[in-house]
């Protein structure tokens, strides 16, 4: 028998605390696999956000620092500047990275910090029970937009699109995990992001459209459908910026 799929050594054996069907788990697995495949488990420092992924130090097999809400990129910057030979990544929700931590994200990109941010966009504040996020779609009902988000509450922020404009950002991709093929592409993007860091090219950022069945009030399978039909049409997808040698780079 050939093993087609088995658990990666990049994750611990602990069962996650995530709700059933929450795609945070898929994204964790991809990162774990990359840590293993790139042989960097022992030289990586991950930074945990505050959000549903705030306990991810229990799952990633590498060293983890737990940041305050929104400060993961600043924390990662400190760790990376202290140990430039280490691989440093942040794992953040959309509230963490695009609302309270927005200045940290954009500034790190501008400084070209040689670290990787993984941005899990589920269009909501999952951890705190489903409030409006910067990424919440217009019309979407949340605990703090009970009548649906309208324009007076602002438009969903497409952070990767913004970051693609920032010179120090070397690699910016926007992917999804709503089907097996998308999962494979997401992994490719994540791997490239880590490689860009290892190559010292600058800041790398991967946004991943993710689900929150619990706070969206749908089943996990319906949640995937919601990603496809609601989120994908709004957020720019694909590799939004690639390093110069690949034809990207400075304008």
């Amino acid at each position: 028998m050939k093993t087609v799929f088995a658990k990666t050594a990049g994750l611990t054996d602990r069962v996650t605390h995530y709700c059933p069907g929450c795609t945070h788990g898929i994204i964790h697995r991809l990162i774990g696999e990359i840590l293993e495949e790139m042989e960097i488990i022992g030289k990586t420092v991950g930074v945990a956000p505050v959000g549903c992924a705030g306990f991810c130090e229990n799952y990633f097999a590498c060293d983890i620092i737990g940041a305050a809400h929104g400060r993961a990129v600043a924390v990662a910057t400190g760790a990376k500047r202290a140990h430039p030979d280490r691989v440093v990544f942040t794992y953040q929700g959309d509230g963490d990275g695009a609302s309270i931590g927005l200045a940290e994200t954009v500034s790190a990109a501008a400084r070209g910090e040689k670290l990787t941010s993984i941005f899990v966009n589920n269009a909501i504040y999952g951890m705190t029970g489903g409030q409006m996020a910067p990424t919440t779609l217009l019309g979407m009902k949340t605990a703090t937009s009970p009548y649906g988000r309208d324009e007076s509450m602002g438009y969903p922020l497409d952070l990767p699109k913004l970051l693609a404009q920032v010179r120090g950002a070397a690699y910016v991709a926007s992917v999804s995990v709503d089907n097996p093929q998308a999962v494979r592409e997401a992994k490719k993007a994540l791997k490239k992001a880590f490689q860009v860091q290892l190559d010292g090219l600058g800041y790398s950022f991967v946004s991943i459209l993710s689900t929150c069945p619990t706070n969206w009030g749908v089943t996990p399978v319906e949640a995937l459908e919601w990603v496809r039909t609601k989120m994908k049409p709004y957020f720019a997808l694909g590799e939004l910026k690639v390093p110069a040698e690949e034809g990207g780079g400075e304008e």
Partner: protein
Amino acid sequence: MTEQGIKQRGMAPQGTDTAEAAKPVTAKPVTTKYVLAGFGGQGVLFVGKVLAQAGMMAKKQVTWIPAYGPEMRGGTANCSVIISDRKIGSPTVGKPSVCLTMNQAAYEKFLHTIVPGGVLYVNSSIVADLPGRDDIRIVKAPVNDLAHDLGSAKVANIVMLGIMQALTPSVSDKELEDALMQLAGKKPELAELNRQALKAGMEFANRL
């Protein structure tokens, strides 16, 4: 409470404080402390609200508080309710006199917290036959099945409420039903279903 103790810049003494002053400290009024626990979705917080609402309508002092602490997702949900003839100090209940456990985790967590002489209600549709205690009364009821018979597994919690009302009431049947209708009776079908569930629970209890 010494009234002069409160600075009067427009603020009257607190209602409860005043009530307190009217009663001798030595009175021994009745106080029932509930812990209601189960999976999220089993409606235990709602049962607590109905109890508290009923207590309030019965002009008693009541508090309701969820265990909102850092429990993990998918863990037990629970709340504490106190219904009392006098002012309530701490609203949290460490040692309930009446406890409801709708699932096994809740049973295991709270079995040993109940005061001797207290009553534990167990959803036997879900909770396996586990070691109990001799110094409390344990009432087992297959409320999922009972609710299923009524046509909706969702009212298992209300069936249990009916059982509790029959065996350890803190308010009159009428007050409880009124409270239930206030909180869940907006849609006529729902009102009827809940009323039936409550009744089914009370009848079940009376057959015990």
